[in-house]
């Protein structure tokens, strides 16, 4: 039993932390989010050069061959720095789908360009009506000659506004909500018939609603076996969910640290507000909430490392706990910062908004609690 990080993991952690400190301070981040694209190409290029984009990929695909612990380390730092560049949608979702389901040709075309930063990917899976049910898919791809014709609409596609490639979840057989009959397709963002409406989310992400109007796809666009997408999607989303929870833990830790610092310096009634016992006890509660979330993340990571298929109930549990504890932490952070906590200028509110988005991504706490209950208590 150990909870230690390898030397490489510590190095990656330190290098991202150093990047945030030196090149991604709060004003820089604000300027990036306010820019046209909402992300920084320079920053992304740095990620590529420092090798961070290669870490989750297998060595035979040109990657570093990292495991879930490496991903956790990266995402926790991304959370601490509130980094807005699309590591999750591009590397973990798009890249994860290609790496798992792609044939050698697809992998060798796409993965190197993801690693060098020239391809920016997205995964289009949500639909207007689907809420958290991935199989609720009305977008259809009909076989046509050797290839396919894709029609439908995907919404709130993370990195949808900036990606040049995307994987689209579409139905090639079966009815709405059916698990079988779903397939994955690689689609270029500038393909004919692809139309995007770009917009911003409260956490700074640039997303898109994307319509596919009889988009012609070649046979090589199909990723994996037709009709059998969900096994791949589940595996990739499972890993991405753990990654997202690591990001949440990073956000929560930083929020606590910043709030603690603030209570030590902000004076009211002639003393630092951190000297008020009622606030002290609440700071202890937020500390415990953070430690508990981190502990459960470690449990999930250890279980997943031993056997990815065994961790699902624990992942559900983690989503539930992170939801509750994040709410406590960002609620207290906002309240203790007083008026400052609700200004756009200060980072506090932005950490809160990122945590809110994380809580709703891949299913909210109620969805995951129901899943946990189904797995644990069904007769």
């Amino acid at each position, binding site marked *: 039993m150990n909870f230690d990080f390898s030397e490489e993991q510590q190095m990656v952690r330190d290098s991202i932390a150093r990047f945030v400190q030196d090149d991604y301070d709060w004003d820089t981040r604000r300027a990036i989010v306010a820019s046209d694209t909402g992300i920084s190409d320079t920053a992304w290029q740095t990620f590529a050069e420092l090798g961070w984009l290669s870490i989750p990929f297998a060595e035979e695909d040109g990657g570093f061959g990292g495991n879930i612990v490496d991903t956790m380390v990266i995402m926790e730092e991304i959370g601490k720095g509130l980094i807005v560049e699309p590591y999750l949608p591009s590397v973990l979702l798009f890249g994860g789908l290609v790496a798992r389901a792609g044939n050698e040709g697809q992998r060798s075309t796409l993965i190197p360009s993801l690693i060098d930063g020239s391809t920016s990917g997205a995964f289009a899976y*949500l639909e*207007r*009506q689907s*809420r*958290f*049910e991935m*199989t*609720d898919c009305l977008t259809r791809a009909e076989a046509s000659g050797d290839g396919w014709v894709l029609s439908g609409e995907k*919404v*709130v596609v993370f990195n949808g506004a900036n990606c040049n490639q995307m994987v689209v979840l579409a139905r090639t057989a079966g009815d*709405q*909500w059916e698990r079988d009959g779903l397939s994955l397709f690689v689609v270029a963002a500038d393909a004919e018939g692809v139309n995007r*409406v770009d*917009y*911003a*989310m*409260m*956490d700074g*992400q640039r997303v898109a*609603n994307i319509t596919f109007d009889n988009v012609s796809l070649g046979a090589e666009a199909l990723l994996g076996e037709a009709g059998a997408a969900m096994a791949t999607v589940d595996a990739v989303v499972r890993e991405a969910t753990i990654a997202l929870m690591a990001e949440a833990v990073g956000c929560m830790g930083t929020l606590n640290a910043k709030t603690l610092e603030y209570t030590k310096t902000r*004076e*009211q*009634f*002639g003393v630092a507000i951190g000297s008020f016992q*009622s*606030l002290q006890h609440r700071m202890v509660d937020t500390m415990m909430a953070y430690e508990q979330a981190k502990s459960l993340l470690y449990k999930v990571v250890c279980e997943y490392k031993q056997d990815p298929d065994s961790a699902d109930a624990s992942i559900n549990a983690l989503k539930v706990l992170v939801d509750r504890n994040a*709410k406590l932490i960002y609620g207290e952070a*906002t*309240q203790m910062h*007083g*008026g400052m*906590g*609700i*200004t*756009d*200028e200060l980072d506090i*509110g*932005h950490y*809160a*908004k990122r945590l*809110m*988005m994380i809580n*709703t*991504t891949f299913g*909210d706490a*109620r*969805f995951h*609690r*129901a899943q946990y209950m189904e797995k644990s208590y069904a007769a």
Partner: protein
Amino acid sequence: MDIAFSPDELAFREEVRAFFDEQFDDELVARLRSDNFKEAICEWQQRLHKKGWIAANWPVEYGGTGWSPTQKYIYETERSERGIPGVIPFGIGMVGPMIYQFGTQEQKDKFLPGILESTTWWCQGYSEPGSGSDLASLKTKAELDGDHYVINGAKIWTSYAQYADWIFVLVRTSNEGKKQEGITFILVDMKSEGIKVNPIISIDNEHSLNEVEFSDVRVPVENVVGEVNKGWTVAKALLAHERTGIADVAQSKRNLRLIKQAAEEEVNGGKRLMDDPGFQARLADLEIELMALEFTELRTLAAMSAGGFPGPESSLLKIKGTELQQATQELRMETAAYYQGVLPNDMDPEVLGHSWTHEAFRNYMYGRAATIYGGSNEVQKNIIAKYVLGLE
């Protein structure tokens, strides 16, 4: 012990409903959502004034409605149920009562009509960058120079200062004695030289808050309300006024109604959100707390009508009311799932997802301030502990 409405009260309710149905028309609703918010809200308030319903909390002699607590309850319930905005508080709710309570006849004659007629827009100069909950530590200075005070300093969190004609300000006129002494309540024309309004963008990406800077702003001494150096008395009276009605049960009830409506349309895996037991349980817990709070408010109203004045008990309404407001706003956000995160912009929200999610976002974000302003909930707890429970 009885809550049945009398025939008169039922008739009053009909009158309120008819008035709202007729006067709060679609055209006005559209204008309130447009860039012309100030003009539209003033027009609405003028319609209320014409009806004689602008000043529910004022004594009749100054133009108040003379409503009983039950009438106030009926009016507020009907108003909030329709999502009709409340009267902008700074004039009618705040400075007006201070002027008729503490002001001179000249001040009453000069300022009250403009407040009642919504022709003067007021804003509030209380908090300062360095003083939040510790209001009495304020540093904005007013020095006497002949028959003028010269004001220097800065106020913060001033809502709608960009619209305001006048501002009421707490200033330090003396450094002697306890910090609560030496504070003066004074009225300042926003057109005075030396006033600068710096916008503050809040986390809802909106501009309603401001910092107001004072550099050698000259204000005639006759603008002092109450006694010089005794402004703390005025300040406290105003805060107690601010707390009443802050529970806003009716608004939370409306939000719950809208949540249920949305949850009947929202579907997950073919099942209505409204049928999800976990969702139902959370909704039930909120409704139940709110049912109770509604009667806590009624009990307070009843006690006030029996000759009382908003006392420390109103702190309870403030704490519980704002907690429930926030919990309700949060549930509404979660009902929107991914769409909760869509930042309001120029596009039709229906194009992006749902029509109601922008309102949910704005309410939620704006609502974060409710536990902070009007005396933070922590300060309210201190007040109850000291004045109600007798703990020191």
